[in-house]
Structure formats: C-alpha cells, structure tokens
C-alpha cells in the first residue's frame, strides 16, 4: 500500500492486448457531434459517417437518453472467478460501456477474462425499438448473420456500436 500522494495521476488507456482473451475493439477517442468538418481529424469518424448517417443533436440526445424501468436490456457477463452477473442496461451509453470496456488494462487476473453474453437478436431489437436508433440496428442486422458463431456476432456488434458512439460524442 502506498500513500495517496504517491498515487499516479491516472492510468492510461492501453491498446488492445494481443491474444484470444481480449474481446472487442478499443473505443475511439472523444469527439463531439458538432465538430463540422472534423471527419478527417477524429479517429473513427470518417468510417462512422460512411456507415451511418450523421445524427442530429436531437437524434443523438434521444438515442443516448436514460431509459425507464421496463425499457432496460438485460445483458450478462461471466468472469472465471466470480461467475455470472446480470447487468441491467438503461441506456445505449451503458450498453456501449459494457460491450466495449474489455477490461483493457487487464486489471484482474481472475477478472481479466470477461465473457460478455447478450442475446444478439434481442439487442438489435432493443436498439431499434426501444433506443430508437434504426441505422445502428440496421447495420447490426446486416453484419450479424444469425448463422455466424456468437463470438463473431458479438464482435460485429462491438465494432458498430463503437463507431456509432464516435458520432454520438464518444464514451470516455
């Protein structure tokens, strides 16, 4: 234990680790929707804008709003040491944090190998019908064929939500 004053300023976000234990893409850096003409400057924005129409502020606010009881999406994560835990996601942002955090600094040897479990089809429906982000849902439908292995479908979801969050102003 080291005195508080010796604590580091902050832990840097690390690059995605090599190896099969890592899941998901590293989220892009924080940008604002309003940065007109910033497509070439903001990592991921150009690709995101190729994939999705640029949302208006109102559309972004609507998609990122806090949802109410009954509107949640129930996901699950499995850690080798802790077992399974249900997570109740009340916003697209929370969903993105869950799907993308990936324990990127591998902070726990027992917990550094998180398995994210979602009903992919259910998640797509939730994004479309509850969150109200049709373009994101359409892209997931396209990139997550039902016959693909779960892991491939999950990674596709993660890639797409990462891009969409760039447009919405990032996560971190």
């Amino acid at each position, binding site marked *: *234990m080291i005195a508080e004053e010796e604590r580091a300023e902050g*832990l840097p976000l690390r690059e995605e680790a090599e190896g099969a234990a890592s899941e998901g893409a590293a989220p892009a850096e924080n940008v604002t929707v309003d940065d007109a003409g910033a497509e070439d400057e903001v990592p991921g924005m150009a690709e995101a804008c190729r994939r999705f129409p640029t949302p208006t502020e109102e559309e972004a606010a609507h998609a990122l709003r806090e949802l109410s009881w009954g509107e*949640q999406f129930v996901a699950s994560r499995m850690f080798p040491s*802790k*077992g399974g835990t249900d997570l109740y996601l009340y916003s697209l942002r929370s969903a993105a944090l869950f799907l993308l955090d990936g324990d990127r600094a591998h902070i*726990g040897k027992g917990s550094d190998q998180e398995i994210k479990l979602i*009903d992919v089809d259910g998640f797509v429906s939730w994004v479309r019908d509850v969150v109200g982000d049709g373009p994101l849902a359409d892209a997931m439908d396209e990139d997550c064929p039902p016959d693909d292995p779960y892991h491939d479908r999950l990674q596709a979801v993660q890639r797409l939500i990462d891009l969409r969050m760039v447009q919405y102003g990032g996560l971190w």
Partner: protein
Amino acid sequence: MSEPKYGYAGKILIVDLTAQKTETIDTDPYIEWVGGHGMASKLFWDYCEDKTVESTDPKNVIVCATTPFSGAIVPAASARCEFTGIGPFSVPEWYNRSSMGGRLAGMMKEAGYDAVVIMGKAASPVWINVVNDRVEFNDATDLWGLDTFETQERIWDEVTHGTPEGSWYELSGSRDGGRTTQRPSVMCIGPAGENLARVSCVVHDAGHVTGQSGFGAVFGSKNLKAMSFIGSKSIPIADPAALVRLRMEVQEKFGYNIDEGKVPGAPGSPGAASTVLDTSPTVARAEGCRGCFKNCRNLFPGGVGNELTCSAGTYFTGSGKIDDTLEVYSLLSKYGLNGYEVDMPVYLNNLYKMGVMGKGKEIDTDLPFEKFNTVEFMEDLLHRIAYREEIGDDLAEGIARAAQKWGRWDEDTSSGLLARPNWGYCEHNEPRAEVEWSYGSIFSERDINEHGVHNAVYNTSIMAVLTGAEPPVAAEDMAKQLADQSGLDDPECFNWSEEGIYSDARVREIHWNRAYGRFWLQSLGMCDWVWPNFVSRKHTLETGSTYGATPEYEVKFFKAVTGRDLSYEESIQLGHKFWVLDRAIWALEGRHREQEVFTNYVYDVKTTKPFPLVVHEDGKWSYSLCQGRTLDRDKFEDFKSRFYVHEGFEESTGRPTRGCLETLGLGFAADALEAAGKLGA
C-alpha cells in the same frame, strides 16, 4: 509434543477475550482432524458450548486454523487459513466457514500456532499481538474507527518498533527472541465489522478477506479489532527434498512458462493455471498468496486497488474508468466489506427505476441514484453500509434480510430480479444447470465457491462454444477424464443433462464433491482456483493427454510434508467425516430438510444465457448450452431423499443418524444430537 509432527507448529492458542487470558494446548489431539476446516470444526465443537447462539453473542467461537501445507511451498496450497464459527451473513445464521490467503497462515505457524480459538468478548476494543510464543492484549481504543489499511500500518509500525520496511529488527528484547525483516501478518476489521454489518469481513493486507461469512461482525461483536502474528520459527517438513521436487514437477507439467507469453485459449480455463500472467504493458504486475505459482492478484503503481482479484475486482465497472474500479475495490477492503455480500447496486438501481426506492418512495432513501454508474454513488453507498447510515442500516444486514424487511423477497426471488438461490448468497454459477455447485451449496452452509469442476468443464469449453470451434477436450473425453481423476469411475457422474442432474450417479458425485472440498480445499488449504487440477494442456503436445495433477499429486504432497501415508480414498473418507460433523452441528442448530429448498426462480424461470456443460443425451455425449432449463421441484426433492439416504441421513429431516455418525467415529456428535432431540432416526 515428544517428537515433531511434520507440517505442524505443535500448539493451538486459546484466546479468552472476556478474561483477557490465553491458554496454549498441544495440537496432538487434533491431528487426526488434519488441519484447516477439519481441525476447526472439532475445535468449534469442543469450545463452543452452545452452538445455537446468535453470531454476535459472546458465546460464539471463531476458529482460525492453518493446515499442514501452510507456510510450505505446496503450489497454490500454502497460504490459506480457514475460519469457522457461527456466521452472521447466511439466512438463517449457522455454523459457517470462510478462508483467507495471503501471508497469514504461514506466519501464524511461524509464530508457533496451528490454530487460534477466539472466545468471549473483551470489555473494550483490543488487538492481540502474537510474537513467537508471546501473546499480548493491547488497548485498541485508538485503532477503533480506523479503516483496515490504517489499522495494519499502525500495527506494523508498533510491532516492528518503527523499523523501515525491509530492515532487520528483533522480535523481542531477549537475545534468542529472533530477528526478521518481515512485516507482521495482521488480520483486522474496519468500520463495517465494528458496526456489526453482516456483510463485513476480516481483512488481511490489501485484499485478502474472509468472504461470504460476515465474520467481520463477529470480530466486532467481540471488540476484537485485530490480531497480529510474527514469528521466526521453522515449520518442520518430513521430506523437504521431495517437496521441492514435487513442486518443480507440478510447475513443469501443469504450470506455465514465464517466457512463452500468454497462452491463447479459453478465458479462465485450466489453461489459466498454465497461462502466463498478462505480460503486455499494463499498469499491473502479478501478485499472489504465499507459495502460489499462479498469482491471480495485481499490484498497481499507485497502490490503489492492490491485490485486486475475484468478485471485488469487478465490483464497479459502470463508469468504464479503470481508476474508478480500483478505487472502489480498495474502498471495499478499507471498510472491511465483502464484494460478494454487498453485490447489490444493480438490484437497488432496479428498485429505483421501478419507482419503489428513492426519496419519499416505499423504500425511502436519498441515495443519489441520478449518479448511478459513478464512483460517487459507490462511495456513498459503501459508506452508508459500513456505518449503517440511513438505508445502509438495512443493507448492512445483507440484501436478503433487507429485501425481506421491505416485503420484496418473495416477489423478487421468484422473478429472478434478485438472484439469490440459497441461504441469501449471490448466484455464483448457474444453479439450474451446474448442479455440483447448486446442490453442493444447498446441502452445505453457503455458496460453496469451489471452482475445480467448473474450471474443467465450463472454462475449457466456453470460448470454443462461442466461437464455433471444437472444444479442446471433447465432451465424452471430459466426462471420462473427470470420472477417472475424481475416482468415481463413472462418466455419468459428470452428465449435466436434464435427466443426469437427478441421477444416482449425480448423488455419488455430490458426495465426492463435498468430501474432496472439505478435505483438500478446506482442511489442507489447497486453493480452488487450481485444485482439483483436472485439466491441463501444458503437457498435451508431448504426452497427448489433458489430464491434470489430481489425484496423484495431492497425496504425494501430503506425504512429503507430513511423512504420513494417506491414500486418496482415505482422504475422501476423511473429508466426508468432516462434512458430516458440520451436518451434525447444523442439525443441533435446527436445520431441517424443509429449509433445503432453492428460491423460486430456480424452479420457475428458465435459463437464457449459454452455459456449456457436458451432457449425455440420446446416446451421445456433447456440450449443451443448457438454455431454457429450470430445476424440477419434485425431481429435486426426490434427489434430496436419495442423497440423504446415501449419506446416512434421516430422509425426512436430513439429520445424520447414529449409525452414520458412529461409523465415522462421530459417536460424540450422535450423543449430543440425541440429547437435543435432533438425531436422525
């Protein structure tokens, strides 16, 4: 003792907090109980006169018992200290158990003690200083109120006489008092234990805790702030050369190669035991319990979050910020709260979202739910629990008791909103499918938290299942391998099909599972993260086999350390004996078959998440995702009846019979149960 008993320090310390006196007895009469849980249960039996008292009654007894492996270099088996006593957390309260890793067990033996029995209640806060054979009671008034980190640092400073870390100091004033550079191993409570929170734990170093027990509140009820152990004695080992050789063999055959880098494979798979620590440039470096080769914990440059692992390590991830996760982890340790037992934020937020919890709501609280998923919310929540402030007074009782008070228990455990399958404990693994876990838990005192079979089956297969690849061990091979290594010899014992989970073979598997756990994990302190060591792929390329170290190496280590011959079969018999003694204690405490029932969601709500387990269906072995499953009430009751009969318990009550007890050499327990009217017929 006339001659050394290898693996033992030779003495047991009896602490009477009421009289502030201690007594030392020989370990000899308790060696037949081996150590750890076996020894602790017999000591509890002998020293707790009334086993039906409440957990915070001064008559409750806490036993802290090392094992013959403690302080030795048995891989992943040299650090655990078993704690037993009437535990506050479970619903209902009864004789319970926990264990703790780190440096405590070895240092306790090096101070001269195989176990410590703590009785009574001090008139005012005390801490006990054990330096080799010298035991001192100290006034803890100035420690009371401090968090666990502050407490330990103060005690380290006092015991080391202010010596800088790493420097030599004398343990006592005498010439032969011994010298050391070690810091004392301290176990202590924080504010949560002081405030008798049922969700509190005893804490050692930065992150070793007595989880899933509530024992922090027992210490608090006894006004016992801390115990410190430092010693310079040696622990006699029967055959040190053999011990070293065996450790090297296990490392070579079933461990990992530090130079190979991370071995790709299923997350948390038994390959994790042969998976090198994450060597990518991260902020953490590996740390582990004494004598471990797996080192599942982390240390961080700023010290915040040190020794992070397991449930508490993922307690808060809602902000997505690593700093926040580390900070909350350290908060848990500082307060002396157990991450598992306060695993309630999601449920509380759901109640808020439902409109039943909040300011002026049915469950009135000003918890700042608008800040949920921030570290500020977590700090506020944990503070309230530790200090029993506002809603924290309910939450300190554990979420099961809180939900019962709020009138929500039946509804929320029926829907699965509150996933507490048995005794108020968190759902750990899927109770509706992974029955060696759920049955083991419902027939025992808590969440069994024993990963051996789970690591072999689930963790080996999960990534393959999710990626559409072939599992590294085919289902039929896995069942056979488990059958071989467990000694059960029948693959049907490891069939998790909807029929298999109620079979007679499964009865035998539960018997074995409880016995192995009681003996090797809890009486020899072998860490369940490695033991039983069923599957290892480190040597597969050379040998073509995926068989792990079990059961060959457990008995070899036992022989090397103690010099005693013990067959694997004998170890299972002893484990069963220790478990049946516990069943006798629970019978005295009023436990009855009618209580051994899961909460409703286990029977009524179908599984949705993929949970790969081996099944034998329609003549074929495969990995099933076990989706759409529930436990069948009637079938489970029938299973329970057959299990009781198999164990020698009365079918109608689940209580041990005289025949069962006497066969196991527990006639004294039969007499006590008969006198109390609690003996099975």
